[in-house]
């Protein structure tokens, strides 16, 4: 089975983010970057499928030079090779625009399976995988926790709302978006990190793929969120704050 995993580099989860001066995005200067969480699960699912059924895992990512470190991380975990779509103007693209870029890179590879994480931790569109399926004319399933290969294709476990699940059968080639938490993530081994340095990393530019950056939807401005409630922050050390909270629960909220 030939599997392409589309991954994204995002700011680290606990990173302090600051809005840049044109108020279009965040200051990227001193940010720490890492692999998007649900993409890490997509990669894990791909590596497990390869271990069971053989084949090849190809990592695909679009972005500027800095994403090279995250691609190497995926190679160190066990992906066989990588495609880096060089682009410094991803911010000018909407979800369809980015998916067009990725689809153009996927098409000549003719994979049996395309996996992506469910949603990115930064922009959070949660659309890339579903649009990829549309652009590649492939069947898809989203919010997938487990993938099983069958004689006729795939049997996948899909998460529904409020604690429900369902199984879905679909033929390959197919696209799946993977939900976090379905399996245990592996770490890169020292040997893996060493090997990753010699693995193939192909660079293609957006221009070579022939996909322009026309967008239907633009992110006009970003801001700090409006507060939905007035929060009383209880000051002091742990003990003082705890005592103050108990007072509030007793006399203001009256639940004690």
């Amino acid at each position, binding site marked *: 089975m030939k599997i392409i995993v589309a991954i994204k580099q995002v*700011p680290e989860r606990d990173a*302090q*983010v600051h809005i840049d001066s044109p108020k279009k995005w*965040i200051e990227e200067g001193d940010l720490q970057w890492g692999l998007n969480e649900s993409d890490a699960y997509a990669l894990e699912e791909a590596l497990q499928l390869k271990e069971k059924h053989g084949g090849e895992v190809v990592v695909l990512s679009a972005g500027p030079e800095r994403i090279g470190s995250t691609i190497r991380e995926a190679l160190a975990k066990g992906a066989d090779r990588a495609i880096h779509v060089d682009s410094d103007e991803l911010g000018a693209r*909407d*979800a*369809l625009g980015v*998916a067009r870029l990725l689809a153009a890179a996927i098409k000549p590879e003719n994979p049996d399976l395309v996996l992506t994480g469910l949603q990115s*931790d930064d*922009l*959070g569109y*949660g*659309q890339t995988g*579903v649009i990829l*399926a549309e652009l590649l004319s492939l*069947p898809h*399933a*989203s*919010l997938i926790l487990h993938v099983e290969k069958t004689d006729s294709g795939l049997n996948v476990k899909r*998460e*529904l709302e*409020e*604690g*429900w*699940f*369902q*199984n*879905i*059968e*679909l*033929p390959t080639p197919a696209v799946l978006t993977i939900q*976090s*938490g379905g399996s245990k993530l592996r770490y890169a081994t020292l040997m893996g990190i060493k090997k990753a340095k010699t693995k193939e990393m192909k660079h293609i530019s957006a221009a070579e793929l022939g996909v322009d950056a026309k*967008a*239907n*939807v*633009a992110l*006009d*401005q*970003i*801001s700090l*969120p409006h507060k*939905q*409630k*007035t*929060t*009383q*922050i*209880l000051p002091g050390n*742990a003990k003082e*704050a*705890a*005592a103050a*909270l*108990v007072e*509030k*629960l007793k006399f203001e*909220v009256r*639940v*004690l």
Partner: protein
Amino acid sequence: MSGIWVVLEERGGRMSRISWEAVAAAHQLASQANLPVSALLPGANTESLAAEVATKALAKVVRVEHAMLSPYTSDGFTIALHQFFEKEKPDYVVFPHTYQVRDYAPALAARLGQTLIGDVIAIEQGPAFTRQLMQGRLSGSYRHNGSGTCFVSVQSGAFRADTVAAGSASVETFTPNLDASQIRTKPGEPFRGSAQTVDLGSAQFIVSVGRGIKEAENMPLVQELAGALGAELAASRPICDAGWLPIERQVGSSGQTVAPRLYLAVGISGAIQHLVGMKGSQCVVAINKDPEAPIFEVADYGIVGDLFEVVPALTEALKAAKQ
């Protein structure tokens, strides 16, 4: 062009609450754009649902009716709605942002050369659509470029279902051309992950724990706090994924929705998926080391500090207060 269309979703044979919220959002959009609001009901055997929908202030209700639209498949819904929208050419299409909509609406929009503005929490003048970025730490204001249909989905709880006025709409039926060979996926019957023995929905007090707890060995800390408060213990998704608490104790879009008198969030940053499951709580208390954590956006009281110091102190203070 033909105004604003809301795509409704049923749940358990009734209109889901978030579908009415989508109608409310459409009316808010209509007041800016001066356009009629109509509703679309894709499915099979939707007569009685359509009759319920027709009692609301809508220009029209159209049943997109076909046996192959039940159960839901992405292929079925995308093909059927694409046929309808290609004919109707709406100005706006508004969806509830459900798991089902996330599964097909991006593909449907793409088939019409468009891009969905998903998970919208507010509609400002313009119209400009607000959605959350960086897990709720920032807000982004989005605009459609104005050519063709603008597709929008709205977050659960962001618009008020009870603002939808009564009315009397005509009901029409649209029959899409669907062939069994076009439906490529075979969905199975929904099933529950585990036997549900805890009903967090009726709990008065909940102590909920998130990533901040760091290790399974630290869980007794919050168990003791829950004990001192007489609260049910709950968690955000990562804790249940790690197996530190059973999935039936998970609060959020993929877990339970709760509305206790007191919700005490410990080490929970407050990702959108968690907030939709608990923002109906009467009183929210957040304990987190990061003063910018989104959980403070919905908290009535906050303690910014190290939970490993604050939680034991709070457990002691609660025990003392109850003596």
